[in-house]
């Protein structure tokens, strides 16, 4: 069946050739500059660069805040998706389209808006300040910004899966005497899990590389609120191209691994679906 399909439909050579050529030209050749540049500096100085205290602190903040932001997104993204799919709500269509906005909004605009709100004299910052909580210009602000930009990823991966979920399975569970919470834990949650994890990984990967919005809200204090992309920018502005390339190389490897994880998860969930 498969081998027939391969031969029957036309255009394989043309489309694959074009895809690979375009991909190489636009993405692979430029990205190959990173290992090339890093290879030029030697292992010793590469290691010294990426393990300097300032770089390590930036990695700690970037990974920690991305993880926290993506976790917030995973939890509330599922809740939002659940509400949008399962419940009737006035203005649902508007809410549904607004969820995408962090995606389409220039990140610097998002950053300025978030800073304005969460600063000590902002709409929300004013409420938090008497409690001794400062949000803008602290790691907390970084988490807020990263949660903001990552939300669409979780909602948009969970929503279609939730919509396709077979209601009959839930009815069957109910007829077998399962309570609603049992049905959720045993039937719905396992089906949603791959999508939720995929959304988490996408939000995490996006958060790790986020620059535009974080720059405004973090305050950019070295060792305290400096994220990795900003550190790369700083190195570039100092014309330390090799140092920047070394840090970027580490980031690239992390991103690639996150993507691989996502694709493995997706393959795992589709094969499981096929079996079930």
């Amino acid at each position, binding site marked *: 069946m498969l081998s027939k*399909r391969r031969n*029957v439909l036309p255009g394989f050579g043309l489309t694959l050739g074009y895809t690979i050529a*375009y991909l190489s030209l636009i993405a692979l050749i430029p990205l190959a500059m990173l290992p090339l540049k890093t290879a030029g500096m030697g292992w010793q100085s590469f290691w010294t660069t990426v393990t300097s205290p300032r770089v390590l602190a930036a990695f700690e903040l970037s990974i920690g805040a991305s993880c926290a932001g993506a976790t917030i997104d995973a939890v509330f993204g599922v809740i939002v998706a659940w509400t949008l799919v399962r419940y009737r709500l006035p203005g649902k269509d508007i*809410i549904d389209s607004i*969820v995408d906005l962090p995606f389409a909004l220039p990140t610097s605009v*998002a950053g300025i808006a978030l800073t304005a709100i969460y600063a000590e004299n902002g709409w929300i910052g004013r409420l938090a300040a008497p409690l001794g909580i400062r949000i803008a210009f602290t790691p907390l602000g970084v988490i807020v910004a990263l949660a903001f930009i990552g939300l669409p990823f979780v909602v948009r991966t969970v929503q279609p899966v939730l919509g396709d979920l077979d209601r009959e399975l839930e009815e069957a569970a109910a007829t077998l005497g399962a309570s*609603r919470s049992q049905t959720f834990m045993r039937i719905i949650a396992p089906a949603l899990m791959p999508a939720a994890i995929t959304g988490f990984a996408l939000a995490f990967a996006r958060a790790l590389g986020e620059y535009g919005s974080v720059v405004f809200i973090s305050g950019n204090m070295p060792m305290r609120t400096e994220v990795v992309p900003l550190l*790369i920018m700083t190195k570039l502005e100092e014309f330390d191209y090799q140092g920047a390339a070394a840090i970027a190389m580490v980031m690239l490897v992390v991103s690639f691994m*996150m*993507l691989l994880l996502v694709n493995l998860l997706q393959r795992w969930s589709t094969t499981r679906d096929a079996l079930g």
Partner: protein
Amino acid sequence: MLSDEREIEGLMSGEMPLAIAATPATHLRDTTTEPPWVRGLITGLALLFLGIFLFIPLAAVFTEAFRQGLYVYLAAISNSEARSAIELTLLTAAIAVPLNLLFGVMAAWAITRFQFPGRSLLITLIDLPFAVSPVISGMVFVLLFGAQGLAGGWLAAHHLKIVFAVPGIVLATTFVTFPFIARELIPVMEAAGVEQELAALTLGANGWQIFSESPCRTSNGVCFTE
């Protein structure tokens, strides 16, 4: 037991205007939804989260833009600097989007209609710009075309400028946005299946006819500009 639940449900739905009365006319308990208070709680949580994290920031963007009145806003976007920035953004999108559209359609056709070794690696590679930090994607172009870059000397000798000029902006935008269309098209074409194309083939259609009539044309790309 059952009557208890019905009573509670009746009480709660009165207090929770957001939760829908899931009980149809028959007054049977719907087994595939939650008790009203749970529904209210989940809806409330969703709205609270969206409010704090999404609606308030977006409201701030708009109040900030229009704070000094519509006139000042119009003046701000119509001064020559802002206008040329907007023009450049639109130009960039006008070049990058058709390029990526062509790529997306080509890639989706190759990936969904054929099985070949390295297929999942190709999908991962298409996704890569998605996960790479925009800072890194900008930087690699500087490394490639900048004054110190690999092709920098050759470009300077021919008086070509890519980085810190319009071609650089177009390149970087193309790089950052190219997974989007392919990513949207692949699942759609996967789901549409090949039956229609095979049927067209048996009816004697040629490659281009199959393609232009195939269901994938219904999908349209969304432009993300940054």
